[in-house]
């Protein structure tokens, strides 16, 4: 029989066994004054990106290689995408190509 006090330790050990798979994270990326903030975000596959448009005009966040696209993000609205297996790389606003940012591989 396992002593009552030891149970939490065993549970922690069991959970640690799953440590190889990081829990997906949620990243909020603001769009304000025609800039993505942060301009560079470290991500892992499965993470969720929430793009929040704080400008008065619509924007998008569109992968440079076309792998993913938020579609139209109206003023004061947000859109969510999940990072794919090969989701890192540059992205831009399809409406305003001067707006660019990058997703990097998290360590």
């Amino acid at each position, binding site marked *: 029989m396992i002593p009552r006090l030891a149970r939490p330790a065993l549970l922690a050990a069991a959970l640690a066994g799953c440590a190889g798979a990081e829990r997906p994270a949620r990243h909020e990326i603001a769009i304000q*004054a*025609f800039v993505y903030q942060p301009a560079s975000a470290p991500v892992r596959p499965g993470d969720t990106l929430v793009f929040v448009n704080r400008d008065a005009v619509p924007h998008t966040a569109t992968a440079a290689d076309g792998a993913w696209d938020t579609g139209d993000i109206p003023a004061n609205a947000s859109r969510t995408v999940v990072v794919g297996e090969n989701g890192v790389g540059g992205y831009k606003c399809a409406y305003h190509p*001067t707006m660019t940012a990058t997703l990097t591989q998290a360590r």
Partner: protein
Amino acid sequence: MNRSTRTLALALTAPALLALAAGCAKDDGNANGSADSTAVAAAPAPIPPPPGTPPGVQPSTVTDPQIAAIVVTANATDSAGGVLALEKGTHARVKEFAQRMVTDHGGVNQQAVALVTRLGVTPEESNTSRQLAQGGQQTRQQLAGLSGNGFDRGYIDAEVEYHETVLHAIDTTLIPSAQNAELKALLQQVRPAIQAHLEMAKAIQKELQGAQ
């Protein structure tokens, strides 16, 4: 930009651009633009005029109600130009840009109107806002007489000139003159949009020149 196209752009935009570049000077709201109009009391130090400003024109300040009217008019003017370009433009990128001008300037104007309404500021016409509206109308009339590549180049050249001048006016007259903090913040928020539009227009201008 080749010489003939440059001349066209300047001819098309001159009234509206001069209004923004120099018309803010001593803008007393007098439609006749009398030469002896006086600057707003307690005005900040005069701001140097942009290159090309006619001699004798000294920039000064504008009031918040006048700034509100200038912002609304400037957005409406460029949005109307976009509507024309959607109709007459031929190059895909010109039409995309035109749609962006309609959408973005419409959005900015909604934001501006909402702000001045909340602040209880009643936009006040001035020489600048009137000349902007008149100049924009003249520009559209002249562009309406063009077609095909000539229209595309004329429209984009005019947009480059327009956004350059609006940017200069924001930096040197409108933001420094704005007294209300939220109105000043609005202008600061609008500036990146104008900068992005300018860079987009320049890229298309370069592409059109390469296609000649």
